[in-house]
């Protein structure tokens, strides 16, 4: 049994609710607040309540626990914070505290069970990890579990959700076109652990992290490519935090956009075909605000002849969330769709016909938003645009 607020106290963040200036800057960038317009839902309101609870060593009540999970962990609050509170970490640790109190939302417990039993969030057999390769069987059949310097880490969503399989297919096609010698881990690929990190279940994620790194090392991998910013962030930020920097030494972790940009610069791929479309770019929170990676995707899109990149009003570090982060899709799916719809409304204002991003979670959410709004916009993942522009 841990002491009250031990996760926050251990990292010295228990003082942060008092440091909060209550200026409310975080409120009007917070998707959860904007969804309800009640301050209890805003970071400021939650910190207000936590301030006295921490002071009095009283446990987080269930209603506040639910509100702390009514959050996409987009990090917009941290970005705008008047007093530089590391809010992303703070919310993660608050969720850890909720876990310590056995008050995780039902969906988190379900994911926990699933990960314990099947090493993936879908509760599916690990043998089905390669379901996504069905359409590109010929390109990957001799890549499974081989030794190579480059590995493609598909992640649970792309591996198991048919609607997202195209992201993996496109990535493999691009790698193949560029002549990249790559490997995929197949059933040796375990969940990256991001759902645990998002829910504050750090210790549970440790085992998954250790396994994935060991599997990659065994195959002599140096570069790991991701379509999923959640997986990328888990490897690039959480693993070193959890296992020490030496655990990831010798690896480089690249999001798809950065990998494609490298291939472009090395001349391994070239965009020759005209792609006459206007594209509004949505920055995934876990790549942008969380890791400060904004430019590679823009450089790739700008390199495509005919493609016109249209920036949304709130872009880069000010980009609004798609509604799919922080497990909100599981804890409050209806709110998640409303948030997605707001992002689509903003994208429509650019006049672009296509909206793009590079994240399976954003893909799902923004497609939900398009459906909800009955918008005429089409969503295309970056890998899809790249594959189409290359004529693959």
């Amino acid at each position: 049994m841990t002491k009250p607020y031990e996760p926050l106290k251990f990292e010295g963040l228990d003082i942060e609710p008092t440091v909060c200036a209550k200026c409310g800057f975080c409120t009007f960038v917070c998707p959860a607040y904007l969804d309800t317009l009640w301050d209890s839902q805003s970071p400021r309101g939650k910190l207000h309540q936590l301030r006295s609870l921490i002071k009095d060593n009283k446990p987080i009540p269930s209603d506040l626990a639910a509100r702390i999970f009514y959050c996409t962990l987009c990090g917009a609050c941290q970005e705008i914070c008047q007093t530089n509170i590391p809010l992303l970490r703070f919310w993660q640790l608050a969720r850890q505290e909720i876990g310590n109190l056995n008050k995780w939302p039902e969906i988190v417990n379900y994911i926990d069970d699933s990960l314990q039993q099947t090493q993936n969030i879908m509760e599916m057999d690990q043998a089905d990890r390669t379901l996504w390769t069905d359409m590109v069987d010929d390109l990957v059949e001799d890549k499974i579990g081989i030794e190579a310097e480059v590995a493609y880490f598909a992640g649970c969503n792309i591996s198991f959700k048919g609607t997202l399989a195209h992201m993996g297919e496109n990535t493999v096609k691009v790698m193949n076109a560029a002549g990249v010698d790559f490997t995929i881990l197949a059933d040796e690929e375990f969940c990256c652990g991001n759902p645990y990190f998002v829910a504050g279940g750090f210790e549970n994620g440790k085992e998954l992290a250790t396994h994935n790194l060991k599997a990659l090392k065994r195959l002599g991998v140096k570069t790991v490519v991701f379509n999923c910013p959640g997986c990328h962030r888990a490897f690039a930020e959480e693993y070193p935090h959890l296992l020490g920097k030496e655990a990831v030494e010798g690896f480089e972790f690249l999001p798809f956009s950065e990998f494609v940009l490298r291939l472009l610069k090395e001349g391994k791929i070239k965009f020759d075909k005209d792609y006459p479309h206007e594209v509004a770019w949505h920055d995934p929170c876990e790549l942008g605000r969380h890791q400060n990676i904004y430019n590679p995707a823009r450089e790739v899109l700008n390199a495509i002849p005919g493609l016109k990149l249209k920036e949304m009003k709130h872009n880069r570090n000010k980009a609004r969330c798609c509604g799919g982060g922080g497990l909100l899709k599981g804890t409050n799916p209806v709110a998640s769709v409303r948030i997605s719809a707001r992002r689509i409304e903003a994208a429509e204002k650019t006049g672009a016909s296509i909206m793009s991003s590079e994240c399976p979670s954003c893909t799902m959410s923004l497609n939900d938003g398009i459906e909800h709004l009955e918008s005429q916009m089409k969503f295309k993942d970056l890998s899809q645009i790249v594959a189409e522009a290359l004529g693959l």
Partner: protein
Amino acid sequence: MITKKQKQNLADIVGEDYFSSEKFMTDIYSSDIAALPGIVNDVINPQAEAVAQPTTTEIVSNLLKYCKQHNIPVVPRGHGTSGYGGALPTRGGLVVEMTRLNEIHHIDRDNMTVEVGSGIIWGKLIEDLEDEGLAVAAYPSSAPSSTVAGWVAAGGSGIGSTKYGGISEQVVDLEVVLPDGEVIRTKDTSEEVFKIETGKKVFKGDDNFHWEVSDNVPYSADSTQLFVDSNGTLGIITKVLLKIIPLRNIRPITASFRSQNLMAGALLDILEATRPFYLHFITDKFYRMLRKVDQAPPTTGEFIISCAFEGSDDEIETEIEKLKHIVSRYSGTVESMEVADHEWDERFYPMRIKRLGPSLAPSEVYVPLENLDGYLNHVNKHFKAEEFALEGAITDRGEVAVLTWFPDDERRRISFLTGWYRSLDVINIGLKHGGRAYSIGMWNAAHSRSYYGKDNYAKMSALKRKKDKKGYLNSHKVFPGPLVLSTRLNLLIMVIAGIVAPIVIWLAGILVPSIIQAYVPWVVVNNLPSFLIWFVVGLLVGFIVTEFANLIPISVVLSIGTPFLRFFRKIFH
């Protein structure tokens, strides 16, 4: 106390989804950005009992009619981003939060005005106007989260005020729901609104507090300025018609100086020779604190002037050249564009240094620019034992809104309480240098008459008397109100009096028995029944004391208490 049935009725008026009386919710809506010493909870009742978020003017009107009829205290609230107590409950009641009235109703390009719902956020309005090639002429430093009518109600100056004036210069017309539920447009107010029906010379603002007003208030059809700055005491603003300007280039520039008097001199000359959109300074103390929190880019001097010019490229260039000459005359350094951009981006972030506290006790006062140097010297001397930071923004009236920040720690109760004197002293020092209070809210209500001017204050008082005799709407703000001792404090005073009375009598019987025997032989404590009798008498005396205490205006308590706080601060700090 709002009854359960009344809560249901209020929820019916505003809509179930837009009403809450849950404790966690009312807690959040019972505070603003200022941290208050714990004792404040015992001398006023800053705990709302319910929160409503009206969605139309009609709902606001219905809410006010209902609350007035049932004498439910109402506190209008924007987004709670001020620190003067203007949005704090003082007698429980209902907080009416306006953020759902957030539409842009109409942009009039011919007259260059925009009509907005009172609860729209400045940041959102600025963004939306930008899409139309337009801008507001001035906005508050809290623009990312403050509401338009919040600033209208609180008053003051902000970014853009150096060129275009404060909020009162921006407001053309208001839609206001008066305390009796009547909806008016302030630009064309009927005489009936102000007509005084009774000839009474005494205004009964609160049940227990009285002050005089004159009935001879001249009527003017445009009463807009009467409602600006009035902290929601005269009515709840539901729509605002604001001036707008074309969107033009803004270029920031930053200069640093080695000393305060050089900086103050440069500020005077800059204001005389140029028309900056924004003119702001920080002193060395603030600079050093910013450095501690990694927010101070390296500069040559530690006294920093941040300036921004607005207009065409040529106009800006001309202004910048003039500024450069002035800076060089005062041996200052024009800093790089990176520093200028950083300072411009930081215009919304005056509270970066809060982390050093982790609390901040703020105080703000207007001082004439020509007296700035003297004022700063006075403050530096007065608070030489304290840690504090100073910054200021210059207005088009040649005044400086000087903001003083005292890093503190609200968790250290006694020291935090005694430190409160500083905020009050800052204003008093400002007044000595020809200044005036920055905003009234609750904590500066003692300065209302001088702040609004005698005539305006009389008009406000007359309207308050006519429409809100019992002072149910935003009580204690602008018009000073009495203490509202908590039940806990009431009981404590009574019990202490109950115990002290028999002990004093018993001691008197031992120390001066002859006097007691000669004059009041019946006053004696020598057994349990007599102790109990005098205990009950003590309780009654305590009760009378609390009743009297509940007649004392907060402003009087603050005036009397300040020297004591200052004295105890010296002992405990």
